[in-house]
């Protein structure tokens, strides 16, 4: 009897005390809260092997890292992965399905610009937050005034301008030609990605005064590129600026070799050129001395110049990458790119949205993204982060992102441009040992 009365009085008191002691005042609201992220990449179809699957791996490594940590600011993280199947219409359908049926709070990922351009418009229409880790075409953001779409990556135009800047600075000293005498060919896959990079190439080439001897697009699925090779032979370029996926890149280079195309330098612009292992498997040592424009591989950055703590994250990503893909010769920049851009979201955008703007809805995430202000060295990719705001022509674009140029030499990627990041002098023109070397 006494015990029963005692328990009736003390019971509620004990429960209340337990609840209060278990969680600090600020965290009470966040208990049981969850951020559902829809992650969209190509796990099947041609783009998967062309780099998308590696990007997906990078994003997953980082998402899993934060899941293991127990979430961010009291929010558990749940990721739902969807396969865009290398098709724009599937990418849009999956994005809509994730938003409407799976009720995700935001979308992350997207490899192909051809998918990003229409998907961004649809996601914006549904008023959801979209964090792009990869697709680089300017057409995704330029003059579209999207409110909820953000991209930490450099744009395709920047890729194109980087290679022509590199050439302009090295034409005389390395190739012995004044810029006006340098014969440049611009070839590209004809999707949003290739077209945008080629526009940057053309803009930079005209600014530098190069002689553009050929500019042409082709379908990435074309079964034959021999006519393009013959046309290039007729145009006799010193330098070829190439933007493509895979396997169009390997088909082009194989046919170029078979048909005797010669040049002094070839500069690729990401995607297929960023997957060194595949290039090596297809082309063997012929791939030696090719250049590639991409955000820097996180394993090539000068760790001393990075924000404290990032070196540890780079090691973690590398370890997980090695577990997932044992035997990789050169760790692909793709993995680090997606991991770094996902890390920026998890450490800069999400905590700010929760703490400062009270949640994870699209408006809170948007305001938090616009507040991000990281100086150079603030990300694993070496660049800083500051997004262009509403009203700007490229609203949502990271203004501080920049790519670098690496050169593949004997199974090692070396950063050769810009000067500030340079690890070694570029080898230019192609040495005689290369089957593509100009006679």
């Amino acid at each position: 009897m006494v015990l029963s009365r005692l328990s009736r009085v003390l019971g509620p008191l004990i429960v209340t005390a337990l609840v209060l002691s278990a969680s600090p005042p600020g965290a009470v609201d966040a208990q049981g809260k969850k951020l559902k992220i829809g992650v969209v990449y190509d796990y099947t179809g041609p783009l998967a092997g062309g780099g998308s699957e590696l990007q997906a791996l990078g994003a997953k490594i980082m998402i899993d890292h934060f899941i293991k940590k127990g979430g961010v600011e009291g929010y558990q993280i749940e990721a739902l992965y969807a396969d865009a199947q290398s098709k724009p219409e599937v990418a849009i359908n999956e994005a809509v399905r994730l938003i409407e049926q799976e009720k995700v709070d935001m979308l992350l990922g997207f490899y192909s610009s051809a998918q990003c351009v229409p998907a961004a418009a649809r996601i914006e229409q549904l008023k959801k937050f979209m964090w792009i880790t990869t697709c680089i075409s300017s057409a995704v953001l330029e003059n579209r005034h999207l409110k909820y779409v953000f991209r930490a990556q450099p744009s395709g135009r920047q890729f194109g301008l980087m290679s022509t800047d590199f050439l302009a600075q090295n034409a005389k000293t390395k190739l012995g030609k004044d810029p006006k005498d340098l014969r440049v060919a611009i070839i590209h896959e004809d999707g949003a990605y290739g077209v945008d990079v080629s526009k940057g190439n053309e803009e930079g080439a005209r600014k530098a005064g190069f002689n553009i001897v050929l500019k042409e697009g082709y379908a990435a699925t074309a079964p034959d590129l021999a006519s393009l090779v013959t046309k290039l032979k007729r145009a006799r370029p010193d330098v070829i600026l190439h933007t493509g996926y895979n396997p169009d890149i390997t088909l082009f280079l194989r046919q170029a070799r078979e048909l005797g195309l010669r040049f002094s330098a070839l500069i690729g612009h990401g995607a297929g050129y960023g997957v060194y292992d595949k290039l090596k498997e297809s082309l063997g040592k012929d791939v030696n001395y090719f250049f590639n424009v991409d955000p820097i591989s996180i394993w090539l950055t000068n760790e001393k110049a990075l924000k404290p703590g990032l070196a540890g994250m780079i090691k973690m990503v590398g370890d997980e990458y090695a577990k997932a893909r044992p035997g990789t010769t050169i760790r692909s920049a793709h993995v680090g790119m997606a991991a770094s851009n996902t890390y920026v979201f998890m450490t800069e955008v999400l905590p700010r949205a929760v703490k400062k703007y009270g949640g994870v809805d699209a408006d809170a995430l948007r305001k938090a993204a616009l507040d991000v202000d990281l100086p150079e060295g603030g990300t694993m990719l070496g660049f800083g982060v500051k997004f262009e705001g509403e009203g700007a022509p490229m609203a949502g674009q990271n203004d501080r992102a920049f790519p670098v140029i690496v050169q593949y030499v004997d199974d090692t990627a070396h950063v050769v441009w810009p000067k500030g990041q340079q690890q070694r002098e570029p080898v230019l023109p192609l040495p005689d040992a290369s089957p593509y070397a100009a006679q």
Partner: protein
Amino acid sequence: MGIFDVYLLEALINGVLLGGVLALLSLGLNLVFGVIDVVWICYAELIMLGMYAMYFLSRVYHAPMVLAAAICIVTVGVLGVLLHVVVIAPLLGAAPINQLLATGGVLFFLQSAATILFGIEFKNLGVRLPVLKVAGMFISYARLLAFGAALIGMVLVYLFLRRTYTGTAIRAIAQDRQIMTLMGVDSRRIYVITSALGGGLAGLAACLLVLQYDVHPFVGLTFGPITFLICVLGGLGNFGGGFVAAFVFAEIISVGGLYLDLEWGYVFAFAFFIAMMFVRPQGLLARRS
């Protein structure tokens, strides 16, 4: 730049060699349609499996190339028989659309199965054939091989159909399948032989394509539609027509792509196809009735 220069000659030669590849691709598909009256929409996927067979035999099990090619041809031939026995035979009396949808279903099945079994990574034989230089022009050895194989394959199939008892039976079935069955020809056996031959030709194409292209589960998308168009342009089931159509198509692509943007070559080729569907809907070499 002159219109007639060494590069035009090189483009013409490239067109002939590309035509050889396309002719080789269309040979098996035409044979199967001509005899069994069913279009293997999944034909390019059989080639994809053959390319994987070559890759694994050569790169993983280090089999000599000739032995690998022989095993590949036999394997894809067996797959052709399996396709017929499991999918086509039960649908022989069904409406053509059902047969088309069934082989379309096999296409997606094979793509998905290859993705699960082999992964999405591009695989490459890693063979780099020497470069052939003739009179200042460069010619692809791999393409030359495919061209030669297409010619030899065409002649062998022709001789088989004309000079052997089984070949005569195949031609007879192709002409009138009901009557020949009444006259005692075992049509089921003929269908199985034809399917094995069609599969074997897909295997032969795989052996040669793997020298030029990376293999991945979706490589069939690169060749499938164009192979089908060539067969239709030549007249489905008409070997000679398919052979000629392959070279006409390839030359339009090659020369058109030299003087205009590469994509225009394809635009002209497809425009030609559409025009011919109005002018000669039965195929380039079909006899006028």
